[in-house]
């Protein structure tokens, strides 16, 4: 079974700083997708960024980028020039390309951006 681990329960940085959230996963599949989802306080979960395992190039979306290390099964999220609106729970998630293709989430990292 696939597992996703986020080892940082909480992080806090000052506005405009850069922060990196860590995620590791375990799978025997070769083709899969990885995601970072953001869940602001009392608001719905939204997709931040996704990475396809067969693509070597790291995904970027404006201030958000990932460092995907397939051999190490590592998938970290970097937020540059952090803003107060980035305060949220961040979940790393995995979905395989076989079977039911269930989206499996990590435990989450609570990120606080301080003014």
């Amino acid at each position, binding site marked *: 079974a696939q597992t*996703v681990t*986020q080892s940082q329960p909480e992080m806090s940085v000052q506005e405009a700083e850069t922060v990196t959230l860590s995620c590791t996963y375990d799978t025997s599949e070769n083709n*899969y*997708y990885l*995601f970072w989802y953001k869940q602001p306080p009392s*608001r*719905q*979960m*939204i*997709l931040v960024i*996704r990475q*396809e395992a067969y693509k070597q190039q790291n995904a970027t979306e404006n201030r958000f980028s990932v460092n995907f290390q397939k051999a190490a099964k590592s998938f970290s999220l970097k937020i540059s020039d952090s803003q107060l609106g980035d305060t949220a729970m961040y*979940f790393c998630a995995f*979905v*395989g*390309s*076989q079977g*039911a*293709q*269930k*989206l*499996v*989430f*990590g*435990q*989450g990292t609570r990120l606080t951006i301080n003014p």
Partner: protein
Amino acid sequence: EAGVAQSPRYKIIEKRQSVAFWCNPISGHATLYWYQQILGQGPKLLIQFQNNGVVDDSQLPKDRFSAERLKGVDSTLKIQPAKLEDSAVYLCASSSGLAGITGELFFGEGSRLTVL
């Protein structure tokens, strides 16, 4: 485009009572998911539908939880009887196809259940 709709947003019940949650996915989305998110944890998949068929319900406590998606559109999740440990946010999500193909799930705002 309307998002995933869920109701009720909040529900407080006593243990051994029953409760039902409703979800209407984004129009045209074939895949519907129910997740349970306990405070401080990541969402855990309870059940996944493809149209009106169950794709995965391996983590659904079938002695007390049931879910249906009769016409392949909206869905209902029921808990009967509720236990204290069922206190959680129940998230509904939908996608146009299986997550491994489409790569993105769209979530509702969730239904927060408190069992006293």
